[in-house]
Every structure is written in C-alpha cells, then in structure tokens.
C-alpha cells in the first residue's frame, strides 16, 4: 500500500494532530511540505486539495480530506483493525462529547497560547502578553473541568485511550514546553493523563520526528 500523504508544515500542531493518529495506527505516511511562509497554502495546487487553504490535508489513494479532526476520525474508522483501537466497538456518546470539548473548549484557548509562546518566537517575534493572559485564564477554567473529570475517568471517554485523548496530544506537547506548562502540570490528574499519553511509544515516535530547534542552553 502506498504511504498516505499528509500535506502541511511538520511543526504545525494541527498537522501533528494527524501524525499522532497515523502513528497510533502504525500507518506509513510521508509529510509533503506546504510552506505557509511562502503562501504555498493559497496556491492552486494546494487549494485543489483544501479549497479553504489550510493545513493539513490528507491524500489516501483517491480520498482527499481536510480538517484535522475529520481526517483523524476517517483514519481511526478506516484502519480500525490496525494499531491502537481509537474508537470503541459500540458508539459512545461520551466520546462524542469529549471530541467536541477538545474542539470548542480546549483548542480555542490552547491554540492562541501555543501560537504566541512557541511560534511567534520561532519566527522572530515576541508573545503578546494580553493574548497570553486571556487564554491562559480561560484554559485554566477549562482544565479545572478536565481535572475533575480525569479524577473519575482514566481517559476522557472512560477506561480506554481513544481518539478524544489522541486529539489533544499535539497541543499538550507544545503547551508543556512553554512557561504556561503549569496549566497542565499543576493539576495532578491532568498531568498524569498527559504523561501517560506522552509515554505511548507511538507518541514518542511522533514527538521525536518534530524538527524542533534545540532548547536554549541554561
């Protein structure tokens, strides 16, 4: 089977969201670079894959998909028998809830934080403290809910690691590399959940592949 093609910038957390699931399923894939800094995402050949001009896009044979969460759901469904089972055998309303919680509570705050604290410096800029404070404050409230939930549940949808947990991994990875890592690390159950995800061999493979610059020397 030809490797799947994942279009995007290898460091982009939404691209890494998909790489996380591809690795959990043990699938062969290549990252085809789409350089946002040169506007490649607005060129006709990329727009032919995602007319909204955003990364990632996935090509699996004749199937072309965009929106990282939809891509992940497709991979988890099509390759259900490969690698880790990310979807339960019987549909779970609790899984659907926590997939939405990631999308509408966690991501809207984690994403601007990671952009300000990781990507702006990477491109020579400085974080905007107003944006950072606003989203750190909001994410703290969200993670308080996660803390209570994870005190009763090993993983978000219950006893098993699922797509709901996997969809958080890329932003958790970046967040815990920033001065706001305490949002995760100061909450014992959130911290334990993150460390469990981070210890998964498939996720270690995903993280190791990231072309991150070395941390500044102490």
């Amino acid at each position: 089977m030809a490797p799947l093609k994942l279009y995007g910038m290898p460091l982009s957390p939404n691209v890494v969201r998909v790489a996380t699931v591809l690795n959990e399923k043990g699938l062969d894939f290549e990252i085809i670079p789409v350089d946002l800094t040169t506007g490649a995402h607005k060129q006709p050949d990329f727009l032919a894959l995602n007319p909204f001009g955003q990364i990632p896009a996935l090509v699996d044979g004749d199937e072309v998909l965009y929106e990282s969460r939809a891509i992940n759901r497709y991979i988890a469904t099509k390759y259900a028998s490969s690698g880790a089972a990310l979807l339960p055998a019987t549909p779970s309303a609790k899984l659907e809830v926590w997939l939405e919680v990631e999308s509408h509570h966690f991501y809207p705050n984690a994403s601007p934080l990671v952009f300000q604290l990781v990507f702006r410096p990477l491109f020579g800029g400085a974080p905007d403290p107003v944006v950072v404070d606003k989203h750190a404050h909001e994410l703290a409230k969200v993670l308080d809910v996660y803390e209570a939930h994870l005190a009763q549940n090993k993983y978000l949808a219950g006893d098993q690691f699922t797509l709901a947990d996997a969809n958080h991994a890329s932003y958790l990875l970046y967040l815990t590399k920033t001065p706001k890592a305490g949002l995760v690390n100061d909450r014992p159950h959130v911290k334990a959940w993150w460390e469990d995800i981070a210890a998964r061999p498939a996720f270690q493979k995903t993280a190791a592949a990231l072309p991150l610059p070395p941390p500044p020397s102490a």
Partner: protein
Amino acid sequence: MAVKLYGWSRSPFVSRALLCLEEAGVDYELVPMNKEAGDHRRPDHIARNPFGQVPVLEDGDLTVFESRAIGKHVLRKYKPELLGAGSLEDTAMVEMWLEVEAHQHHPAAGAIAHECIAAPALLGRMPNQAIIDENVEKLKKVLEVYETRLSKCRYLAGDFLSLADLSHFTVMHYFMATEYAALVEAHPHVKAWWEELAARPAAKKVAGFLTIGSGVTTEK
C-alpha cells in the same frame, strides 16, 4: 421514556439539537431554563454539564452535551442515514463538512449574527462594526468555497442531506435576518441550498423558537 433537552430554545445551539430531534422524529421534552436567572450556573445544571452551558440531552442514563455531539448521538440512534452511515466515504464527508461548519462557517456567520441581533437585543449595546467587517471578509471567502461545492453536489456531504447541512440551520436563520443575507443571496447554489433547508418542516418548526431580536419573548 422521553428524551429530555435542557436549555432556552432561542439559542441557536439549543435549537441545533432541537432540529436534530425533530428530523429524527424523536419523542422529546424540552425542559426550559432561564438564562437571565442563571439556571445554567446552578449546581444541578453543572452536574449535567460541568461547562455550565446549554443544551444538555438526557437519554435514559446518558447525559450528552455540546450541540453537535447531541446531534450525532440522536441521529446515530434514530436516523443514521443523516450521518452517511453505511459508507466510509459518505461518513467521512459528513464529518469533514461538519468540521467546516464548526470552524469556518460558524465563527464568521455567528459573529455577524451576534453583533447584529444578539448584541442589541440581549446585551443592550450597538453592533461592533469592526468585528462585523472582519467577519464579512472571512465569510465571503467561505461562501465562495460553498458555492463551488454546491454547484457539484446537492448537499454539502454529497447528494444526500446530512447533519453537515442541518448543523448550519439555526445560526444561518439568524444570519439571514441581517442585512448581510445578501452575501448568501449572491451565490445561486448556496441560496438554493439554504432555501431548501429552511423549507423543511422540522426547520420551519424550529425557526419559530429562534426569537432573539424579534421582540417576542418566549418562556421556552
């Protein structure tokens, strides 16, 4: 036992769930809540939804929150064809266009509807024109993509109606009451798709709940 939905039906999120219940033909009870009285912040509601939001669905011993999760739960159980069930490709297209609704359409159209309708009616302030203008530019680009898509397929996920289409209805109903409805009307296929959605009996019933800005207050 009837399914219960908690919330105030003028909310496009609560009504998104109501539309799914109506389309699925499910026997349900709407349990009205009072936003002004802070019903959503009371412990009994926080126990149902720790984020303190509406809607919340109770189905037997299951409690479901987030309107699109409620929609998926209801349709999977009662009308799976609206999720593209039975075809991997159809299901993938429904999921993708539902993500598009949530992350491309809603932020722009919802912001415009919020400024034009909710801000004056509920927050007692004038619309913020800068926010409107920024979102009009975004929505224009989004609608161009929709026009191309709907020129090729009758509905967003393909030639079948799905949750991806239905999920747009309640926010669009408010949006189409603003002067910016012209943005939709400028695209013949988007316009036709919208009119067909709005003509559905379930949509007409739910439209009656969407009363923000109409001067009608409903206890529901």
